[in-house]
């Protein structure tokens, strides 16, 4: 059951999802936000193991999309495909299309490095560069790309403010990035990603290693980020998905089982597997 949608050629209008990928009734209201990214029949492998079995999913602009599902369902693989990070792993392979605005980022002349400049990513485990100070960590994207910044101080402050970390670190910017607490390190990583002004921010279980207070801070932050960014968040935690996400996609065994407004997914799931998962009967 292919979703009834037109895949745009380069330069054509943005794709519009008419129906839910499983072909069921489109629960989205007509005033749904426009689509920023769109995965079409996305398949991914690790060596012989197929991790994604044809995912078709829209990512809406200035919204938070949560990807939920049990371990090994392919949710991390999916977000890693959205900025071409999946192929960094040896023997990993991707097939299918992912559109950023109207352009297929798996198209023939696309440079994955350019894709990653426009789509930022935050990982499960906070990974600030241990050899760099807090300031250098925030500016790492620019310096690694070989770019010079005109007003680095301003950029550092802005990025750290957006990541809700400025007040905590403004006096210790020259300290090592790894001297911070786990939650602070994760926000530093968010600041590092935001310093590049990405259009989309991918977050792969950003809170799984954090305590509840640090998690709450990151969740508040995600709420604010939605104003200016498109956010995709992978989470194990269904309450978290319910709290932060506008749209939720449920993955199971490498397939997209259900996608819709978070409210709909949690209150009236269509698929019995979704219902079983969100009510905690498996996973």
């Amino acid at each position: 059951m292919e979703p009834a949608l037109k895949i745009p050629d380069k330069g054509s209008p943005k794709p519009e999802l008419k129906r839910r990928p499983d072909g069921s009734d489109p629960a989205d209201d007509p005033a749904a936000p426009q689509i920023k990214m769109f995965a079409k029949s996305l398949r991914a492998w690790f060596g012989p193991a197929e991790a994604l079995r044809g995912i078709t999913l829209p990512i809406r602009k200035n919204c938070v999309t949560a990807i939920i599902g049990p371990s090994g369902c392919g949710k991390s693989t999916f977000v890693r495909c959205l900025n071409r990070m999946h192929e960094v792993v040896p023997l990993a392979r991707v097939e299918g299309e992912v559109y950023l605005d109207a352009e297929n980022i798996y198209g023939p002349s696309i440079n994955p490095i350019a894709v990653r400049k426009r789509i930022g990513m935050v990982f499960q485990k906070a990974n600030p560069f241990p050899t760099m100070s807090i300031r250098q960590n925030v500016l790492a994207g620019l310096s690694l790309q070989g770019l010079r910044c005109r007003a680095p101080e301003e950029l550092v402050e802005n990025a750290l403010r957006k990541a809700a970390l400025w007040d905590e670190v403004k006096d210790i910017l020259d300290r090592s990035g790894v001297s911070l607490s786990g939650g602070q390190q994760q926000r530093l990583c968010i600041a590092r990603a935001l310093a590049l002004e990405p259009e989309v921010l991918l977050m792969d279980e950003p809170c799984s290693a954090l305590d509840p207070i640090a998690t709450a801070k990151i969740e508040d932050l995600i709420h604010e980020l939605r104003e200016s960014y498109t956010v995709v968040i992978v989470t194990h935690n269904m309450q978290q998905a319910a709290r932060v996400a506008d749209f939720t996609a449920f993955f199971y065994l490498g397939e997209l089982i259900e996608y819709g407004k978070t409210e709909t997914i949690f209150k009236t799931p269509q698929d019995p597997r979704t219902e079983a998962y969100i009510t905690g009967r498996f996973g």
Partner: protein
Amino acid sequence: MSSETAIPRSVAARIPLRAPRSLRERLVGVVLLVCAACSVITTLGIVLVLIVETTAFFREVSFRQFFGDIQWTPLFAKKHFGIWALVSGTVLTSAIAILTAVPLGLMAAAYLSEFANERIRRLLKPSMEILAGIPTVVYGYFALTFMTPLLQKFIPSLAGFNALSPGLVMGIMIFPTVASLSEDAMYAVPTSLREAAYALGATRLATTFRVVMPSAFSGIGASVILGVSRAIGETMIVAIAAGQQPRFTFDPRVPVETMTAYIVQVSLGDTPTGTLEYRTIFAVGMVLFVFTLALNVVAHRLRQGVLKDSVQ
């Protein structure tokens, strides 16, 4: 259910708890201790001999003669004991070796750790390490009979014995060690840091040189220092190809003599034991020992990551 494999209860109950530890067990401990002590005792013995002989040497030769002169002619009628003539030979050949080995070694390490796929890495790394296992006398004649004539085609003023050719060949000998140890250090850098860099739009090259290498700094530094200390201690190559002419110079084209080569020269010659000439080799040996000891201490501290925090 698993009672078949366990000791039957009736037997276990008969094992006395207060039995003395068997004599054999204790004996093994003593034997192993002696083996371990051997290396320490040997080192202490060497240091002791060095100190005794060096003290005897300095009873006849003043520090001023030793450190305040640049001529080294203890075997001649007019004796000079200026150690700098030998130190310059060692420093010059080692510097050439390090300038060859470090760039080559780091590039090889970067390739193996960050660019090569697993198959190439598994093939290339051991074959590179074979280079480090070739006897140094082979390298010595390689320098003398191949490298020097080759270099003379480009540098006509190069003498038959010189510092350049053995320096380069030492570099070739050392670089696999530098490469292998640096590669170990780089390979151990967590993947999460590489991914962080890639996700920020960094190229593989930028990731390698700006993220992976700085993170592996202590390991790379230790490998470089180990290379330096091998270059300083290397004897055969310089004894064969550098010329055995003590000379205070930093010109790589002329014959020089290193501290190690001088020790070989005297040991192989007909210098009677117990004479001042004979004792010079202990004084030189002492200087050499201090050099390598200092480097080993630095390398050790680097490996312990003591300097890790000051990388920044």
